[in-house]
């Protein structure tokens, strides 16, 4: 008893072939889209790799690029098969390749499922990498004379301006590090000396933030220094002032950016899985409809198409039996060897 059989006459076969050809080309476009999204994601990760300590994992974008290319190839081949399917001479060329092709499509769908899963799960890894990377970035902000870290200041300033954020968790992270290099501190000045000596590690700490934390939407000129000292500025209360500097932390800002990107890519991959399944079902119907034609010379005859030759349970039973026999060919059959050994 075939699983989900459908009767086909010539018109239905032609319509199925044409519709399937268009869906295959749509899938090629989706494959190109996945490929370009993979490249875009890779570029974005590279751009912000300084914020992540150059430690970020490129697994997801690389997988996306691979999947995109595979999708293009597989679907283009499928489209070609559909295009040739109504011409029996050309179709005979493709007939032997169809079963392995459908198995390849199944494997490809599994790969897509894995990629979608990774898109959702790798967000945790991105979060952790960001937390670690930003902490180090803030620590190395002042080291503009150290080779390899010359541009950390610039990158961090750009990030804070672009993502409208300040510090790692919030602006108080800047109070805990020395972000002004010793080159620009007048060590002969008493105030400077006092401040440096006031903490164990000898760091010049102060309650100020860099200019990139300033909010341009504030009605008053930006207050960067003595942020927690209300009396240092006229008409200023740091507890209720929200518009002066960005209150969001950069880790949260960057994470929400990457997370929304990865979530939308994951949703697109799930849509691709559904599209690929539709492709596979259509192709199976088309090939079975063409194979079961009683009179191959007469294109007008009717034929049957189905998804599975036997029912679902029986097909699975057959598959399991095949797998068992594959396993058994490697085992030594005990009964046969003993008489040989005896001889």
């Amino acid at each position, binding site marked *: 008893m075939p699983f989900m059989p459908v009767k086909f006459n010539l018109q239905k076969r032609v319509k199925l072939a044409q519709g399937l050809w268009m869906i295959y080309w749509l899938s090629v476009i989706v494959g190109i889209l996945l490929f370009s999204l993979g490249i875009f994601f890779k570029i974005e990760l590279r751009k912000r790799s300084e914020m992540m300590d150059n430690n970020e994992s490129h697994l997801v974008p690389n997988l996306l690029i691979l999947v995109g290319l595979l999708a293009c190839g597989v679907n283009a081949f499928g489209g070609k098969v559909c295009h040739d399917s109504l011409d029996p001479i050309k179709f005979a060329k493709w007939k032997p390749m169809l079963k392995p092709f459908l198995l390849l499509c199944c494997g490809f769908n599994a790969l897509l499922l894995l990629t979608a899963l990774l898109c959702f799960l790798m967000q945790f890894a991105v979060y952790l990498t960001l937390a670690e990377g930003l902490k180090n970035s803030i620590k190395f902000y002042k080291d503009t004379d150290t080779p390899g870290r010359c541009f950390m200041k610039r990158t961090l300033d750009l990030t804070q301006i672009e993502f409208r954020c300040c510090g790692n968790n919030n602006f108080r992270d800047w109070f805990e590090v020395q972000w002004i290099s010793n*080159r*620009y501190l007048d060590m002969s000045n008493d105030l400077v000396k006092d401040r440096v000596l006031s903490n164990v590690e000898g760091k010049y700490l102060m309650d100020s933030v860099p200019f990139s934390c300033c909010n341009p939407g504030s009605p*008053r000129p930006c207050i960067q220094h003595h942020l927690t000292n209300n009396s240092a500025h006229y008409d200023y209360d740091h507890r209720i002032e929200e518009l002066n500097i960005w209150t969001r932390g950069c880790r949260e800002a960057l994470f929400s950016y990457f997370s929304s990107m990865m979530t939308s890519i994951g949703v697109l991959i799930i849509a691709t899985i559904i599209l690929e399944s539709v492709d596979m079902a259509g192709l199976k119907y088309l090939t079975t409809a063409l194979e079961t034609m009683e009179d191959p010379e007469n294109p007008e005859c009717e034929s049957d198409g189905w998804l599975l030759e036997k029912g679902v349970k029986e097909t699975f039973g057959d598959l399991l039996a095949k797998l068992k026999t594959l396993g058994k060919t490697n085992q030594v059959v005990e009964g046969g060897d003993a008489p040989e050994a005896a001889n």
Partner: protein
Amino acid sequence: MAVLRLKFTKNERDKLAQVLWILNWISVLTGILLFSLGLFLKVEINKRGELMAERDIQYVPNMLIAVGLIACAINFLGGKICYDCVDTNKFLRWKLIMLPYIICTFFFTFCVLVGALMCYSMRGELEESLNLGLTEAIRFYKDTDTPGRCFLKRTVDMLQMEFHCCGNNGYKDWFQIQWISNRYLDMSQKEVVDRLRSNVEGKYLMSGVPFSCCNLNSPRPCIQQHVTNNSAHFNYEHQTEALNLWMRGCREALLEYYTHIMQSIGLTVLLTWLFEVMDACLSVLTGVRYLQTSLENVLRQGDLNSESDGWLLENSFMETARTNLNIIKCLGKGNQIDTANNGDPNINVPSTSKAHYGPDNVPLKEIPEAS
């Protein structure tokens, strides 16, 4: 003696009409391109409308938009004509419009050229507008509580951060105006009062700039206050320090940005104009003219599927020029009193031009009157 006479079979006529149709649709696409370029320029100008004083610069994008729409309309009409040319019945409808259409196309290509040249001429007006606009914007930077100017501070800050510029001509523009509102100045402090009294207009002036002037590439944290005072900061010399603040003025930065956009648009429009001219001369004039004349000849011969001749001009250049000059002379003479026939313009004057009796120039046989 026709100019460049060619024989056309029905198939060749159809093919000619189809090629013209395709060319016209490509021209529609270029019309859409012109329209979208005009729209883009308009959007870009309006985005920074707050920073530009009232000047007549909207005419350039408006012209481009109008020219783009007219291009679409004319070429769409041309496409329709060519599409209908294949069918001789429909061709009769368009017969009268062909010549005006050709004249319109000529006039329109001239408009496209004018549009391209205007792109390059906009620069002077734009510079003037930006100069005035930026001066005003910097002056009203502090007025974040005045309705209508609340967001000027934000706009100027974002502009300076995005275009990497400071002030109108340079950062010293900020020293000449009060950019901190009185709401945030402690009038009870002696220093503040002294500074206010130190100049005629009672403005709080200082050698400081807003944070948005800070240069990202500077290796040291930004020095915004006491910019010209070397002793206020350790190891600092403002004359040689080039990386601390953005050195470029915002007027120059914006002008360069808009000039770049307009040069690209102007170049694209010039290329479109060249394409239109080629399209008009080669295909519309020759193709449409050939189509028109060959179809007219087909109608004269009466057989729709036959071969027919097509030409550019029916007689040679000299004769056509002579005929046209005579027509113009007669137009001029129409107002003068003709003394030859005792001033009566209604007396029949024998025609000086030869009658045209079709391509063979054989006069028709007289139809015998029925008795």
